């Protein structure tokens, strides 16, 4: 095929200025609040940085996963959306900043990092070959380096195609994606174990990595859906995107809502049924006092409500309902991460005040700012992709 045959009609337009302004304002407010929280309560601010770190990791590496998935599955419908996921996954470069507070203050977050605690604890001694400060830092740095490399090559090739229309780049990316998949699975599990499960170093759950994976893909999809709907409404994407394209986004979100519930329930039920004290205590903490309301809330916000919204077939094509569901899912993922980590820091009292909101504001501001800066230079649609023309003709 020559480049003429796959060319589509796309004119690059600027994002509305209100969008980047909103991002900038949120970024400033968030920054001020975050600095204030670090000054007033150093440990709590660090603990909150863990939540937002895992949240941004979800969205960014999840988006890169969606890109890779499209390549190896040979998906056609999602080609017009791929560039948006690519831009979102740029955040991989920035998440180490959010890991920094915890790395500088390991003692304030990770119980296993205390030498004296390990000395009196048989279990922690057994886990010490994995859970020790040096190895923790080394493997996390290694993971980020690997992720950066994949980001660089995957999205770099895709962007190069915009001008060269070289089909070989697609082939290269398919190979890269295939290599990325197992690495993604392992590295995401390590992140989940290191940053969420090891907050309670005595606890273990073999399904935990999958649990975090479910939330990761779900929030990456929700983020993508939200951006696609917003940009398409403003006319910034290509012509020809129809309900059929939306439907696939909605259906995927719906599927992963179920997947998350399935995994979350499996984890709970096995531990509940086996009733082994070394596993149940983690749930008991979350099932007592104020935390119990949060646990019930999680069932609703992460499963029942978005499930009910997306259940009817027309809902999966209706921009308004899709947007509502996507926003709820993003909130739910944050809620989920808060529920996973906070009870480990404060067993009896539910902690929630402006400390917990500071980082999310910063994250949203950062997300919008990054998106507006990145999209200035890059096309919002992979115009050089050989599947692009077919993608626009996609019918359910």
């Amino acid at each position: 095929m020559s480049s003429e045959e796959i060319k589509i009609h796309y004119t690059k337009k600027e994002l509305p200025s209100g969008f980047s302004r909103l991002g900038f304002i949120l970024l400033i407010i968030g920054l001020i609040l975050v600095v204030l929280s670090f000054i007033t309560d150093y440990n709590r601010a660090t603990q909150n940085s863990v939540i937002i770190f895992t949240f941004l990791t979800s969205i960014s590496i999840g988006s890169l996963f969606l890109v890779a998935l499209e390549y190896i599955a040979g998906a056609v419908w999602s080609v017009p959306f791929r560039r948006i996921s690519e831009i979102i996954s740029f955040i991989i470069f920035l998440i180490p900043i959010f890991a920094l507070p915890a790395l500088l203050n390991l003692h304030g977050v990770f119980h296993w990092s205390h030498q004296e605690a390990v000395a009196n604890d048989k279990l922690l001694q057994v886990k010490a070959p994995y859970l020790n400060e040096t190895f923790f830092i080394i493997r996390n740095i290694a993971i980020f380096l690997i992720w950066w490399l994949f980001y660089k090559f995957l999205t770099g090739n895709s962007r190069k195609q915009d001008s060269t229309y070289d089909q070989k780049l697609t082939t290269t990316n398919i190979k890269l994606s295939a290599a990325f998949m197992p690495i993604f699975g392992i590295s995401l599990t390590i992140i989940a174990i290191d940053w969420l499960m090891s907050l309670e170093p005595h606890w273990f759950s073999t399904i935990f990595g999958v649990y975090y994976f479910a939330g990761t893909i779900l929030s990456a999809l929700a983020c993508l859906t939200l951006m696609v709907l917003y940009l398409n409404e403003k006319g910034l994407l290509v012509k020809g995107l129809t309900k059929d394209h939306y439907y696939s986004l909605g259906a995927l979100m719906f599927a992963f809502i179920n997947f998350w519930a399935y995994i979350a329930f499996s984890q709970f039920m096995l531990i509940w049924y086996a009733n082994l004290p070394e596993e149940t205590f983690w749930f008991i903490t979350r099932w007592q006092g104020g935390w119990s309301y949060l646990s019930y809330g999680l069932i609703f916000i992460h499963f029942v409500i978005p499930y009910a919204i997306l259940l009817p077939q027309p809902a999966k094509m209706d921009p308004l309902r899709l947007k509502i569901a996507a926003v709820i899912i993003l909130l739910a993922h944050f809620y989920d991460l808060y529920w996973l980590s906070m009870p480990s820091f404060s067993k009896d009292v539910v902690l929630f005040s402006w400390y917990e909101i500071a980082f999310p504001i910063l994250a949203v501001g950062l997300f919008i700012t990054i998106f507006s800066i990145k999209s200035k230079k890059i096309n919002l649609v992979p115009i050089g992709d050989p599947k692009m023309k077919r993608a626009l003709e996609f019918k359910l």
Partner: protein
Amino acid sequence: MSEKKLYSVTALFNTPDEISKAAEVITNEGYKNFDVNTPYPVHGLSSKMKLKPSTLGYFALALGLSGATIALLFMYWTMSIDYPMIIGGKPFFALPAFIPVTFEVTVLLASVGTVLVMLFLFFKLPNNSHPLHDTEYMKKVSNDKFGISIEAKDPKFNLEQIKELFASLGAEKIEEIYYDEEEINHKNKIFEPKFIAFLFVVAIVVAGGTYFTLNKLLYMSPFNFMLDQHRVDPQAKETIFQDGFGMRPPVEGTVARGFMPYLYQEDPEKAGMLLSNPLMATEENLKLGQNKYNTFCSPCHGYFGKGDSRLNGQFPNPPSLQSEKLIQWQDGRIYHVIQVGQNIMPSYAKQLTEKEKWAIVLYIRALQRALNAKEEDLK
């Protein structure tokens, strides 16, 4: 032979584009009772035909919800009400344990039910015939042609007009379809003896095959490898133990749940001295005592413990429980008689629980006080 009755006029086209065009034109002309037959799903056809969204989804929803309700109520009734059983130390109504089953039944009922609803409501089972069956038209559209068929019952139906319309759309072949004779006489092929016999054979093969697989095949080698386990079977002989019994008796001194070993079997005086009634003289306890006393003791000792047995001399008359001796006895001493028995009075240890025995003692005390009321008791 009666005159043939027209069912529809059909037309065959060569490409999906042509059929889409034809469907659009015919919809716009205002025809209602027509259908399009294609060898594979053609995108965008249903919107061109202005089909309403299918109602099948609502059936699926209703069936799924009823599946969930039925499963939950069934487990609630069996496991918590009719035959409560403690499993794994969980409460009788153990919701998390019920959820997988609820999920399965929901999916099962929704999927199987939806297919059945589709067959009965939309395909009009048990009617399994259709005028288009076994026609040249059907053969073509399930191979490589795209067909459209306008039924004679359409209010706008006009044979010549439609034929012209088809021709103007570039139809390859236009054909009239007539009802089969059987269809006019409303004979349902499904009730033909041949078909019923066929169903019968299928049922027998399926049932017999299932029975054979589950009850015979699985016990034949090599499918029975799971039965070959290195374990001790109940009631079986077992050589690894000296006495040759596979089942082991409980360790000596084992105490069953809910039972207390009785330490004063041989020593009534000590029981009298060391045991005391753990129950308070509440109304509830006295009621319990009265109930159990009237059941187990009154036939011999009488309702008031006066020794006025209702056995009419068939059994040596038991002593009164109102005697000075008994009034002087400690609670524990009376308890001992219930627990161990005394001479020809049997033990009631097996019939009564710990609490009930003490409740009887309490009640005997009340009886004694009632028949020997003092001045102060009247107040």
